């Protein structure tokens, strides 16, 4: 069905569910076009597995445009594969060469249990956001958007942090499985904007507390997260977050207490 000229060997992690243990299984990927995305290559493999009556390989994906954050493969030792600033769905087979062996694993972190094969459960990220990653405003009780002036440089800086797609590659890349880059992205976005000021210090405390509760490791400033983040979220966010966190701890204890109750 395809018109390609690459033949590859895949070593794929297969695991029925979170309760069972998994293992690597080797597959051939044949006639792969260099123009295919990595996921399209897996589609081809899955089609042939299905024809043989075998279970296709399960992996998470949806938009296939690099924006939903759902795809999550650990390819040859890198989350989202070897290319910088690219998600798995936007990784193309021209990055690999004919005859190559490719190892494909799920994100590995205790806070991200395996769902099946290559898909993991990242709901811990949602729970961190639920703990405070928002501005408390009800629908309909707002002022004119231009009544809040935001200098372009600030808006741009907030935007850079807001581009996080919640994929979890930062956690997967980190030897401590720390979620600091992810959490700091939201903390920074809202911490920079005037709308985020009232809850700035309570927010950082609640989010960090939830992050710890979920079992993510601590940050030792190795920087693997930044290097592997497909959206190139900056390490400086972590510094900003630490700053807010310590300010909150030192000066705002009482205020925060009030906010939380």
């Amino acid at each position, binding site marked *: 069905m395809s018109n390609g000229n690459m033949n590859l060997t895949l070593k794929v992690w297969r695991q029925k569910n979170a309760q069972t243990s998994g293992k690597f299984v080797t597959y051939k990927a044949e006639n792969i076009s260099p123009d295919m995305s990595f996921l399209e290559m897996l589609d081809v493999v899955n089609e042939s597995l299905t024809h043989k*009556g075998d*279970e296709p390989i399960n992996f998470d994906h*949806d*938009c296939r445009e690099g924006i939903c954050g759902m795809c999550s493969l650990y390819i040859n030792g890198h989350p989202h594969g070897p290319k910088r600033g690219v998600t798995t769905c936007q990784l193309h087979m021209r990055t690999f060469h004919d005859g190559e062996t490719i190892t494909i694993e799920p994100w590995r972190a205790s806070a991200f249990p395996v769902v099946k094969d290559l898909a993991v459960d*990242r709901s811990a990220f*949602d729970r961190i956001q639920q703990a405070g990653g928002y501005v408390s*405003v009800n629908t309909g009780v707002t002022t004119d958007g*231009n009544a809040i002036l935001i*200098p372009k440089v600030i808006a741009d800086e907030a935007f850079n942090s807001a581009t996080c797609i919640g994929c979890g590659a930062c956690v997967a890349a980190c030897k401590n499985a720390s979620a600091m880059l992810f959490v700091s992205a939201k903390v920074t976005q809202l911490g920079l904007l005037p709308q985020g000021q009232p809850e700035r210090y309570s927010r950082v405390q609640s989010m960090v507390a939830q992050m710890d509760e979920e079992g993510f490791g601590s940050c030792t400033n190795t920087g693997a997260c930044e290097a592997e983040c497909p959206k190139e979220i900056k390490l400086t966010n972590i510094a900003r977050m630490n700053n807010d966190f310590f300010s909150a701890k030192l000066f705002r204890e009482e205020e925060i207490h009030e906010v939380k109750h």
Partner: protein
Amino acid sequence: MSLDAKIPEGPLAQKWSKHKFDLKLVNPANKRKYDIIVVGTGLAGASAAASLAELGYNVKAFCFQDSPRRAHSIAAQGGINAAKNYQNDGDSVFRLFYDTIKGGDYRAREGNVYRLAEVSVNIIDQCVAQGVPFAREYGGLLDNRSFGGSQVSRTFYARGQTGQQLLLGAYSALNRQIHAGKVKMYTRTEMLDVVTIDGHAKGIVTRNMITGSIDTHAGHAVLLCTGGYSNVFYLSTNAIGSNVTAAWRAHKRGAFFGNPCYTQIHPTCIPVTGDHQSKLTLMSESLRNDGRVWAPKTVEIAEQLRKGTIKADQVKEDDRDYFLERKYPAFGNLVPRDVASRNAKEMVAEGKGVGGSGFAVFLDFADAIKRLGEDTVRAKYGNLFDMYIQITDENPYKQPMRIYPAVHYTMGGLWVDYNLSTTVPGLYALGECNFSDHGANRLGASALMQGLSDGYFVIPYTLGDYLAKIGPKKVDTSHPAFEATKKDVVTYINKLLALKGNKTVNEYHRELGHIMWEYCGMARTAEGLTKAKGLIQALKADFWKNAIVTGENEEVNASLERAGRIADFIELGELMVDDALMRNESCGGHFRVESQTADGEALRDDENFAFVAAWEFKGENQPEELHKEQLVFEAVHLSQRNYA
């Protein structure tokens, strides 16, 4: 059954305020006695769930992805319209209303569209308050750009990621309510049926996509916010998971389906290169602000370009045909999507298509780079250019992009009245899932507007009216209707799992897509549509004999999930073809070859087709019954759309 759109009486500009006043209210103390089910947590669903929870209702929200933040809305790039007139260029609620009606080729409801334009202003304020980082000017004010089909600058944007930022805003409002315990969120849960009792929607049946558990949920009302069905064409710009299942199953339980054949074809997508592709990628329409669309003037030059013996930048100015600028001087490259798409298709039909396949025209930034500098162009469109490079391995800063139309959005969907109620009382449809507001052709930056308008500003009022009327008496899943519907679902799943044939469901999907694109795509004929109907019926019969579905229900099973969705797409495809065949006129992107002007433009037939087609399901393999909602135009005069 007669269709009542329930459009309020009175002058257009006062309809919504008056209606809001007339709607019944639920006493604040009683709100917590009501349970609301929201299926889908994209822009429409997340904004609705959050707003209803803020009001005090108990909300259960569902999505099939692992997190609400991954809904397809996240992919929207270009922007969202609002009649703020911040640019002082003459915009107004009426102008946005007028452009949208005209852009919909006079096949949308005046009342709804006016309300949409009216609340558009509040949407921006709401999102700003949530911390959505819209683009700003140096002075700190919100920035705007213009979009196809309009001559004012009213589109708000967040680089090329407007959808992501708006969705993250709605997601954060939703998160706040989940934290507060007012919303219970069910992720990786797929709704498979609607439960009705005495003709009212009272709940849903779902499948837990991890364990396979089939569960029932009861509520006083059910809101479907499940998005559009462009994936019926197999290749589209939609996320892979986007599907019609929720809407289609609701249709089979009595909800009429409105204008199923109305599909938005988007002119600026990265062209197909081979049959390995699983989806097409949209390049934001905002690119047409600075990019110039052209094709070579002669077939000979096109031939050379296709073979690669010359490159686009070597084609002399005189040998280029900037066909949109030539034919539509007032709008130029910013003509609406259907006009731009049809013209690109014509170029290809004349043999002037470019790229390896010949199915493409150029979108050229050379002039913009000369005029503004590469850095400015990079600042404006950098991420889109990067995406293009990623996919095609070509550099659009050096060579023009290749673009071609692709299926993008569906204006058809469940029929709803002014209150967003389907024909099943208690069952509502919001956002792309409903048919309303866009007519035959959606203008850019208006779907995001509609999703958020429905969720934040319409349903919180109109739902209250229904709830106040039915009262807070508890519904629960012990009613036999729940068990009966659940049984139907289980039977259906078992039927799918029993399919052990020789063709994958993906292969059926691709075949369906070919049929739909070929016969029910940008140009349609009675003959082609009749043929398509036969092909789809044959495909359906074959599917139920020869498809392969692997695995079991009691586990993660992507094969089973897809099988159900594709079976529904096949049935929907047949209805789309029936609808297209019935609509013997050209409107919006729906070009019936039999109905065109002397110079080949789309020709509407207002005499016979100024209506919404609402189809009623009459049983398996029975022809559906057509109901017509006549469209009444009071504020605008029906006129031939003209962008010249």
